[in-house]
């Protein structure tokens, strides 16, 4: 399976590593080539420097043969536009989009991609940790 990961920050680089380790054919796109260092020297996938909203860049990244597209940059706008270009210009079926602002999920819910709000996930994780901490302090007091 050919996978395109847009954005090579913490999230993008870790997902790309995990996918290549699972045997997937991965191309990572980031406008900043130094970001690819996060992938490590032994990364078995491909890298392309350029912006993930550009049709030509995505074509070079193998968008025509791509069955999974993941937009992970630090900008909601970049991720949302990249995802729409992936759907519109290349008809990529599975498109995953990282967003920071939870409210955007409702606005783009009908566009046919999966929106994952990392802020909401982090808030849930923190809230659970806070609840556990409270329970612990109640037990000891």
């Amino acid at each position: 399976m050919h996978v395109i990961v847009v954005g090579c920050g913490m999230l993008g680089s870790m997902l790309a590593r995990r996918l290549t380790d699972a045997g997937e054919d991965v191309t990572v796109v980031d406008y900043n080539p130094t970001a690819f260092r996060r992938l490590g020297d032994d990364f078995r996938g491909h890298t392309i420097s350029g912006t993930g909203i550009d049709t030509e860049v995505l074509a070079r990244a193998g968008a025509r043969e791509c069955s999974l597209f993941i937009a992970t940059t630090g900008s909601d706008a970049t991720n949302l536009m990249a995802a729409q270009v992936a759907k519109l210009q290349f008809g990529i079926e599975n498109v995953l989009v990282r967003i920071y602002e939870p409210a955007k999920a409702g606005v783009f819910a009908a566009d046919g991609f999966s929106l994952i709000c990392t802020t909401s996930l982090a808030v849930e994780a923190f809230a659970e940790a806070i609840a556990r901490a409270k329970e612990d302090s109640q037990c000891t007091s």
Partner: protein
Amino acid sequence: MYVIVVGGGKVGYHLASTLVAEQHEVLVIERDAARYEGLRRLLGDDACFLGDGSELHTLEMAGAARADALVAVSGKDETNLVICQIAQRYFHVPRVVSRVNNPKNEEIFGKLGITATISSTRIIYSLVVQEVETAEVTPVALLKRGNLALVEIALEGSSPAVGVRVRDLDLPDECVLVGIVQGDDVLVPHGNTTLHKNDLVLALVRRGKESLLEQVLHGPAQNA
């Protein structure tokens, strides 16, 4: 009319001051604090808002729900696209206009539902190319994303159109004369209007037909 302008760079600032001068209610959203301070000094407190216009929360506080129009003029196409989509889909702003920095994104914006786009790169390119192609026909404005042009042509004494009535001119299809400047007067031409030497003719013409219009008003092209 209440207009929200997202992006307080040069384009955003000049657009906002023009709208203010025309008595419209305007709010410029700018996320950079230093640039916001500069705008506040020029436009006043009430016309500026510090925040990230690509967040729903910011647009909500800016009153997007009651805006008559929203214009996204940031330097980033992806930001402008998403802002316009949020304005359209969530806040139901009746008129949404986006600046497109990279002309090749214009088509994609259209397909994604943002049809009112302005690409300064494309407009300048069109003007330059047109200026080179037909030096005698000066473009005044490009309309409808560059497909129609308002042009002006000065009639020289040697013009075959001098002394001819408008109705007898063999104008190309998709071309109308919209104004004739004669000295200090501006006439709205009709069929009986006769053209004179030194008239300045304003015409609305489909892009690509300028040279046909030039032939009618200047005579066949002479290689200089």
